[in-house]
């Protein structure tokens, strides 16, 4: 039976690609539901509240219900908006996230597209996110959105650099640009996180990851107390849902990427590899959420100063360090 299916798809590679695309896209849509639910629960518990409770057991279906509500809402386009870009922005954000998931190995062999330059691909594709935010902010014909969009672009671009540098440190250290290669290296030589240059790289990566997914203390693109809701102020219904979904899917992805780079991906004893991947991801997501509900947010100039004055030089130095140690 399985052989028959395998054979069928080997004969029709296009069909197989389509199946994979659908699975990935729906995964990207479903994962936010879980992540948002967990986020709301954790936020609630940290803040002495209970979080969602009513829809389903312990409120499990709350986010699904919210998503359904968003799908049914009227699609509002503000007057004077640049319609083409306004329509396009959320989908670009979403597609960039799906593309990132495409090359992510969940377990040995569980990868939609085995690519030998996966790391490079991810770095390139995730930058689409910035474009979509700028498009959304600018095309909304709203000053709050514009401010939020501009802030977001300045922030994301500044943090992209130390992030890439710290990822490069891993690449040089392990000598592979393929995620599967990096993970297999770790399976053999132990997790990267235990090696000094990568430790620093991991710390920088985490800080940049917080900035990349717009979380406190770097959540000012959507600082609601100043900018109402930032770049997505004018979005509602379906399009807002896509922005929201891509943000939380990004959250998932960026931790999964970290797991692959620093924590040995699927590597771990006893449990099957896929469980290890998800376990690591969710532990990291929990830390992110825990962190989100603790500090206040920085100001835009402080954020940029922090990135350029500290993170960039340190990650550059760290990169040299990693290269020196990594060359064998």
């Amino acid at each position: 039976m399985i052989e028959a299916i395998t054979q069928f798809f080997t004969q029709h590679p296009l069909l197989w690609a389509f199946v994979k695309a659908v699975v990935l896209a729906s995964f990207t849509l479903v994962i936010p539901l879980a992540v948002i639910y967990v986020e709301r629960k954790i936020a609630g518990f940290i803040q002495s509240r209970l979080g969602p409770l009513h829809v389903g057991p312990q409120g499990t279906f709350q986010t699904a219900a919210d998503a359904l509500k968003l799908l049914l809402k009227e699609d509002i386009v503000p007057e004077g908006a640049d319609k083409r870009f306004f329509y396009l922005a959320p989908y670009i954000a979403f597609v960039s996230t799906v593309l990132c998931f495409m090359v992510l190995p969940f377990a040995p062999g569980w990868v939609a597209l085995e690519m030998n330059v996966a790391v490079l691909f991810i770095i390139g594709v995730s930058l689409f996110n910035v474009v979509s935010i700028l498009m959304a902010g600018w095309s909304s014909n709203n000053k709050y959105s514009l401010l939020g969009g501009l802030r977001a672009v300045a922030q994301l671009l500044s943090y992209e650099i130390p992030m890439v540098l710290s990822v490069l440190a891993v690449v040089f250290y392990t000598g592979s640009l393929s995620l599967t290669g990096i993970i297999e290296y770790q399976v053999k030589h132990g997790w990267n996180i235990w090696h000094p240059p990568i430790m620093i790289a991991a710390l920088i990566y985490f800080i940049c990851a917080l900035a990349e997914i717009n979380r406190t203390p770097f959540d000012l693109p959507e600082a609601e107390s100043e900018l109402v809701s930032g770049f997505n102020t004018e979005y509602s219904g379906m399009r807002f849902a896509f922005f929201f979904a891509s943000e939380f899917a990004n959250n998932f992805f960026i931790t999964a990427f970290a797991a692959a780079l620093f924590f040995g991906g699927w590597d771990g004893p006893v449990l099957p590899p896929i469980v290890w991947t998800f376990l690591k991801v969710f532990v990291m997501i929990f830390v992110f959420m825990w962190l989100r509900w603790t500090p206040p947010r920085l100001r835009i100039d402080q954020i940029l100063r922090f990135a350029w004055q500290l993170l960039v030089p340190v990650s550059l130095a760290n990169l040299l360090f990693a290269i020196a140690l990594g060359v064998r």
Partner: protein
Amino acid sequence: MSRQRAMRDTEYNPLVYFIDGLVTLFNGMVVTWRNLWRPKITVRYPYQRRPVPPRYRGLFYLKWNEEKQRLNCVGCTLCAQACPTDVISMVKLGKGTHAGVSEFTMDLGRCMFCNLCVEACPFDAIYMGPNYELASERRDVSLFRIADLAQGGEEAVRKNIETIERLLAEEEKAKPAHAAHAAGGQSE
């Protein structure tokens, strides 16, 4: 007065600030972690309710006097005079010792729940009760009539009017002969 200088920070130094930031952030996370395990304070309102303290100022009620089989209210309008926003209006029934009210209306749409009317009442007739769920979808229901306000509802109002009318009639009968005696006897 204690004059002091606010705790100031040293000049900006990226590394020092960063390390300080990490440490203090960790401290903050300790606090949030501790709170993560504290009992939650949510009261799931329609399913759970907080106990209402005895002094709570909610919807009014007119006190029913079981012994005298009537409402305590004598229709003196002191409460209406004490009200800053003219919430109360009433129709007095009879006069003299046995006077009461046949109609007593409160427009809660205007009420501030300030308690001044309750304090003004010398007969312990009017109180503010524990009922706080007064929201409605209709505007006209903010008008509360005597049957809504009296302890015991319609039944109490009917009995109240009966008692007062009976007493008034008795007084009327007794009046020509021993007015003073009768009044003294009943006001006990």
